[in-house]
């Protein structure tokens, strides 16, 4: 029963990754990172439910909770940055912020 969940988690993770790499809207990019989190949460919980050894534990769910908290923190900061960047240049295009690189 573990395999389908792991595969599904991997699919969600990779779709998020592809979205992050290909989409240019900063907000969508962050949304894609959240999607990657979903894949990981699914993985963690599935592993907790169907461990390779021994009885099911709740550690996976606890980790998933931590992950949600981290995601919330990330979302708060990321969105604040997005708002700031939008005010700064009036665009959400990731390519517009290339000047952050070291000249």
């Amino acid at each position, binding site marked *: 029963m573990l395999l389908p969940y792991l595969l599904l988690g991997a699919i969600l993770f990779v779709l998020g*990754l592809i979205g992050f*790499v290909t989409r240019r809207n900063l907000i969508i990019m962050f949304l894609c990172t959240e999607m990657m989190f979903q894949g990981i949460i699914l993985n963690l919980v599935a592993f907790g439910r169907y461990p390779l050894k021994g009885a099911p534990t709740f550690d996976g769910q606890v980790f998933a909770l931590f992950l949600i908290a981290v995601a919330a923190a990330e979302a708060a900061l990321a969105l604040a940055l997005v708002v700031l960047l939008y005010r700064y240049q009036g665009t959400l295009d990731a390519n517009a912020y290339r000047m952050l690189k070291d000249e």
Partner: protein
Amino acid sequence: MTLLADATTTILPLRLYATLPLWPLLGALLVGLLVVLRRKASATHWPVVLGVAASATLAIVLFLDLPKSTTNAALQEHWKSGVSASQRAGELYAVFTGGASRAPALTYTLYNWISLGDQSSLCNQHWLAVNFYFDGLTAVMLLFVTVVSTIIVVYSIGYMRDHHGQPERGYERFFAFLGLFVFSMATLVLSGNFILLYLGWELVGLCSYLLIGFYYPRPAAAAAAKKAFIVNRIGDFGFALGIFTLYWFLTAGADPLVQHGENPLDYATVFKYVGALEPWQITTVALLLMCGALGKSAQFPLHVWLPDAMEGPTPVSALIHAATMVTAGIYMIARCTPIFGASPLALNVILVLGLLGAVLTATMAAAQYDMKRILAYSTISQLAFMFVGLGCRVPDSAVFHVFTHAWFKALLFLGAGSVMHALSGVIDLRRFSGLRDVLPQTCRTMLIGCLALAGFPLLSGFWSKDELVHAAFERHPVAGLILLATAGLTAYYTFRMFFLCFHGELRLPDDAAQPHEAPLVMIVPLWLLTLGAIFAGYLGVTFAAGGESFLGFIRPHGLLHDYLHDSTIGTPEHGHGGLWLMYVSALVALGGIGLAWARFGQAPETDPDARALGGLWRLWHAKYYFDEIYDYAFVRPLRNLGRVFSATDDYGLDGVIWLVAAVPRSLSFLLHFLQRGALQGYALGMVVGVAVLLLLWNLIGV
């Protein structure tokens, strides 16, 4: 609250007395709060004045409230008995705490601070506690520290303003520092263990640094503050080492002296076991502790910082460098009498250093023109007198002199401050004279102060100084003669200063606009201190008519001594008789004053001494070239060494680091083009990297 043995306790709870140091601290913090709230600077002195006054009130009440002993017989027996010195120290303490007659020491533990662990695998029972120790010595010290501080703080309200009554820049800061200082000093005096003592010791040093450097934009003030701090650091290093070795000796070994449940650095523990140490151990500890006292009390050879410390505002000079902070060294040695008393070598070193310092600095004082510097050298000289007393096994007389000295020296400094205030900061005696009509109140109070310092009979300085001279004579006639001569010299240079300032025809510096008498808020403290300068000595004498009395009605050894004998000092052995010496020293003082009148009574513009003494006078004027010698012997070699290290760091180490850094930098230059600033490109790179790793794992690993 811990009571030792069956001592009667105080009437008011000890908890109340334990708050004594906290009021000035609270005041200082409130000043900070007022500054944050942007209140007017001119009222910011109130919290500190009230805080310090609260402390002073508590100190006076404590002084009266402390349980008093009725008999010193048991202790005196032990001091006189023929047992060896180290044994005596240990037994002294045993008598002192466990004796059935009384136990004057009270300890109040605020809380256990640091756990020291345990040598033998039992539960933690050794602590460094924050505890306060109340005995006669504490009470006497606190009495003058807080009361004189209160008076000086009040004086500062007037002093730290310009002629229009506007507060100087940094007025709030000044008062906050004063509050902090009184807190530190009270902590130092009250502490019940060596660590808290060290804490107070360093806090006092810090406050001294802050206050000497109060006018920090002036380079001289900044340099003086640094000098004071660094010279003190040298002494404090020795002091810290002393505490460490003490701890080591008491706790090291398979069978340590300190038992379970006893805090190894508490006075109670230390003095209980110090008698069981080897003589060499006691001497090591005593000499190291003495280093601390030399630094803090500005004794030869670490005396160089005190004269420079006069760069601070005058109330600071009065408070820190005359009345309180510099007395910490004397206090510490007196407190550690059980340690020092067991080490004849340490006592001899203290005696010799004291004698040397007394003579050297008194002669330096005789050849200066800066009023505050004269007073500073005089302070060192007087502290050296106290050192001699400590070296002669009469710590109670030394503390008595500390007590009286605090009043008249504070008075003298504040008087000098009043002169400075009137003359817009001019303090060079060559530039003015004849101020007695311009500053009548200052002149009168200064006269009393000078008389007290000179040892004029019936004023406070006379009684305490005479005790020290007497003890020195008991110890060795040469020591006594040196002290007596120095006492005469003290009278001479004190009145040289007085006459040059107040006598002769009126001369004023050009840049002093309108000399005026100080405001009431400065004059009243002067008169209060004058009262102290006259009457403080009477706490240390008793009125008794009869044959063995000075002038037929006064006999040395009074209330203050009783207090001090109820402390770790114990009851030193005072020689009897020697009443003739009091008359002799009175004559010497009068002779010194008379000589000063003959030479400086008309405040001549050129110094007659300079011509008469020639090279010797120049040597004195240049302070025996101590600063220059130290500069050549220590400062410059160290600075050069520092330059070498700095160069090694800059070129040697940094060069290597630069090389190490240069290689990756040059490599990274090759990969520079990959950085394009596109976030997603980087992410793609990561994905590819992970994929490649996985692929490799797949191909190789499985």
